[in-house]
């Protein structure tokens, strides 16, 4: 009897111990688990832009993002945030990059062409809540105090975008909350990350901080932004051979996103000789009619003509891709 008791005292804890180890070994998430929740369980603080999602808030936010206005929680009819743009004028709402951990413009363009996703200047709202900075890098260098608060705050970024980038008005509290709720509905899930079997094995050995780092290594914490220079000679362009088939993708998914009938721009670009001939004629101009000028520098909102074109950073369109667009234009002109 005594020996049985001793045996039980040894075996049961051993069995329990092994079970505990097994439980601890298994990552407590699946593909549908939001990344934010896993990080929170690992001890990360809730971000400042966290809001609770309700179906009504998310729907209102979706209307605000896609249509530019929504009906308020008390039934008030909202007015357009901007007369000129909606969020989707410059931002997608879906995944844009096959690999979330690197900047690869060609991979992004190919992904866009395969999935018919617009090729835009702004970063996608998909996963934007998972980032840690916005309006970073050269935005700070160029715009200074205008963007300093927005660099570390998604709320401030959203407000800045509404007032300055969209040439619109300040957001009401319910509008901000609704937009953020909608953005949260587009957050990354663990299944979006490229977590391998080896990563999962590594997970078991790690402490919390290491697992946080492991997760964060699978996606960029910011959207890098480099304001690129014009080529030294516009007639020679950047030192790349253009690929017209890629340029066609840029033209259709990028340019024509706004330059279309009843679009954001009054200037309509068609895939015909008239448009392409006009674009070709102005390639070397020292004006915003040149594709180099307009892509790298954009235009400014002016009195009497607030609509403007934001530029593409280097990360959003590489020099190679600008040459691709040029090749497409010259081929079709």
């Amino acid at each position, binding site marked *: 009897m005594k020996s049985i008791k001793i045996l039980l005292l040894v075996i049961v804890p051993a069995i329990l111990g092994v079970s505990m180890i097994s439980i601890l070994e298994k990552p407590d998430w699946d593909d549908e688990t939001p990344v934010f929740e896993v990080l929170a369980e690992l001890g990360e603080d809730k971000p400042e832009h966290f809001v609770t999602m309700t179906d009504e808030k998310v729907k209102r936010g979706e209307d605000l993002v*896609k*249509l*530019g*206005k929504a009906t308020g929680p008390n039934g008030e009819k909202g*007015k*357009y*945030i*901007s*007369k*000129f*743009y*909606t969020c*989707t*004028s410059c931002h997608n709402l879906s995944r844009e990059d096959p690999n979330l951990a690197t900047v690869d413009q060609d991979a992004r363009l190919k992904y866009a062409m395969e999935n018919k996703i617009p090729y835009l200047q702004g970063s996608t709202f998909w996963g934007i809540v998972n980032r840690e900075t916005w309006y970073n890098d050269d935005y700070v260098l160029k715009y200074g105090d205008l963007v300093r608060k927005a660099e570390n705050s998604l709320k401030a970024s959203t407000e800045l975008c509404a007032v300055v980038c969209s040439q619109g008005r300040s957001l009401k509290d319910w509008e901000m909350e609704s937009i953020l709720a909608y953005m949260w509905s587009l957050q990354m899930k663990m299944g979006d990350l490229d977590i391998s079997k080896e990563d999962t094995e590594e997970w078991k050995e790690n402490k919390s901080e290491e697992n946080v780092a492991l997760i964060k290594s699978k996606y960029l914490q910011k959207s890098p932004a480099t304001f690129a220079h014009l080529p030294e000679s516009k007639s020679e362009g950047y030192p790349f051979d253009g690929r017209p088939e890629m340029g066609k993708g840029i033209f259709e998914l990028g340019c024509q996103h706004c330059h279309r*009938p*009843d*679009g*954001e721009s*009054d200037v*309509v670009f*068609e895939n*015909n*000789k*008239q*448009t392409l*001939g*006009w674009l070709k004629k102005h390639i070397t101009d020292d004006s915003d009619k040149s594709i180099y000028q307009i892509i790298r520098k954009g235009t400014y909102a002016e009195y*009497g*003509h*607030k*609509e403007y074109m934001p530029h593409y950073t280097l990360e959003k369109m590489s020099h190679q891709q600008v040459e691709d667009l040029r090749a497409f234009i010259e081929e079709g002109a």
Partner: protein
Amino acid sequence: MKKITLSLTLVLICTALVAQTDYAYETFDDTRIVNGHSVETKNEGILTFIIAHRFGPMTSGRNNLWGLDFARMRMGLDYGITNKLMVGLGRTSTDGTIDGYVKYKFLSQSSGERSMPISATFLGGYALETKAVHPNPDLELDLSQKSSYVAQILIARKLGDKLSLQVMPTFLHRNLVADDEENDIFAVGFAGQYQFLKNWSVSTEYYLTPKSSLPNNPDGNDFQQSLSFSVQIDTKGHIFQLHISNSQGMVERTFISESEGDWQDGKFLKRDIFFGFNITRDFKIKGRKIR
């Protein structure tokens, strides 16, 4: 049989998913061709200021800069209530005419899943000659006697990237006419535009008004069919239209039924034709559904 049905169903679904409608856009550069309206309407929330000048006859010679010293002017505001419905209000210096109109685009040329060969717009207008006087100086005209109305169906088709054509069946009603004139005039207009560069185009506009319907000209010369030629320049926010015409009028009642100039009388600078221009400027008053 089941396989065939399934295949057909899949084909139909795929076709429905792939099919789309492409609408013709910018059939004409602006809502006016020269004097008359095109099928175009302003987008929702756009307020357009339009200023139009018609100068004196070129026969007035070099000393009067071939008519530039004499000017008639119309100022107007057009507003897009929706992308298809617009209203306009204006005043012309000639006879102090105040005019207003409503314009609705009820058909849009399209191809693809929904195919429509033409665009069509209804125009209904009213004009009041505030300075019109009774031939008898002891009598005054009342408001209805100074009024005229116009109704048009503007039918246009864009033929490729560069050429657009339009026909304009027109009904014009003048409340007060001489005893030997008709109140109602039926006319047909024809117009076309050719876009030879990205933001340059040329256009022409002609109104075929039956001679028997044309009113009597107090000056003695017969009124003529209205014929105009124009060049358009489309810049950021502005449209410039430079034209020559045998009509000085800028309201339907005047250019459809009271065109004084004669294209066939004399050499070019010695004809009673008039140089003029329209300039429009768009202002965005409120937002609209963009996508």
